[in-house]
């Protein structure tokens, strides 16, 4: 029974096969430092250079390779098309979601860039509006509950949260995305797919646009049936060009009269 438990954990491995090694772009930056590595004491400057170089690793190529070499052979072609259509680009990623869980409703927008790593989200829910920005070692927050205050926390990294596209990608990679057939949402042609949960019951139903293969709607079901636990409507999910105006969208909005309260890493944690 215990061996079976480890097998079951192994079965939910989100990446059953290792990702391919990205190109070694960072090595050039390290090598240019000249001296043998073991003799050089670590310095702040070298760390920064190497970190920047490492962040430039072409991970996108590795992800694309996964898409091409993945488990598409056992899937209907639409599933592979959905997966490929949802690969991230290099502009400003924008998503606008509306979530319903019973009587609770949330409108959520997020803008994010990967170079530099930065994101801003605006959530409108029952308790008002919350705006969060993170990136460049700084996090800022503002809310309508406390409109006179902008909280800044120094020394933190951006953290992405739930993403409908990521859910689809992960299901496809795990062989758990099953296309059920065509449907329409309003006048919009779409495909209906099921993200199968591992213990047999339907996990969620996903509706994707028949032309762009981007998600339109996700409905999470209760394992035993009954009304869905959560509906997420994807109003927009797109890659905006990296223009000055769009890049500005990942910065905190102007909040006249709000005073900035800074929290250092030591006191903020």
């Amino acid at each position, binding site marked *: 029974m215990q061996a079976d438990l480890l097998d079951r954990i192994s079965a939910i491995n989100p990446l059953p096969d290792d990702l391919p090694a*990205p190109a070694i772009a960072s*090595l050039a930056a390290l090598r240019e430092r000249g001296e043998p590595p073991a003799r050089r004491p670590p310095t702040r400057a070298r760390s920064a250079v190497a970190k920047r170089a490492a*962040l430039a690793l072409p991970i996108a190529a590795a992800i694309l390779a996964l898409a091409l070499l993945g488990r598409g052979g056992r899937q209907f072609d639409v599933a592979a098309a959905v997966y490929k259509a949802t690969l991230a680009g290099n502009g400003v990623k924008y998503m606008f979601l509306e979530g319903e869980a019973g009587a609770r409703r949330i409108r959520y927008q997020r803008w994010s860039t990967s170079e530099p790593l930065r994101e801003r989200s605006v959530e409108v829910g029952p308790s008002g509006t919350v705006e969060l920005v993170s990136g460049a070692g700084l996090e800022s927050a503002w809310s309508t509950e406390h409109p006179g205050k902008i909280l800044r926390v120094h020394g933190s990294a951006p953290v992405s949260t739930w993403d409908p596209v990521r859910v689809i990608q992960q299901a496809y990679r795990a062989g758990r995305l099953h296309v059920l057939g065509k449907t329409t949402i309003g006048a919009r042609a779409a495909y209906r797919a099921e993200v199968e949960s591992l213990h047999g019951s339907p996990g969620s139903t996903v509706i994707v646009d028949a032309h762009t293969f981007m998600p339109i709607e996700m409905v999470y079901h209760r394992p035993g049936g009954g009304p869905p636990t*959560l509906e997420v409507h994807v109003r927009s999910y797109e890659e905006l060009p990296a223009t000055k105006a769009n890049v500005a969208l990942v910065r905190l909005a102007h909040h006249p009269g709000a005073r900035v309260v800074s929290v250092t890493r030591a006191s903020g944690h």
Partner: protein
Amino acid sequence: MTPDKRFQALYHAHAGAVLSYARRRSTRADAEDVLGEVFLVAWRRLDEVPAEQERVWLLGVARRALANQRRGSTRRRALRSRLASQGQAPAAAPMPFPAARETRLGRALARLSESDRELLLLIAWEGLSNEEAARVLEIRPRALRVRLHRARRRLASVLAREGSGDATDNPTALEAL
């Protein structure tokens, strides 16, 4: 072998495994960051990387790098609370591993302590032997066997509780929004 060549060989042999290890436990952006951190450490301490245990050594570094990131993530989750009061941050939520937590077993794993969970995942996801997992966790093999037995028992217990109709069996993606 020159340091450059050794480093290149190390990178080509294990970068995929390190990236995957981090990606299984964090977001894509964080995993890329961890990959950079790990190989920066490897470059600095190249002569300390054991030839027969390269992957295990690198995963140990990756584990520590992820732990550092996790502290940053906790700050992020606490941000809203701090807006309301500049007092203490709330208790840390368990680190998500986004794909697996869609499942009942994944949610049960998320309820374990970080050390229990990591032990099980090193064996089940990274395919390490007990001895290798002990090296990554910097504990003795005998201690690992004891901890492994306890971690399995605790996981089975959480699963049994969830199987009795616990409401938390439902997806909680809205909370993650």
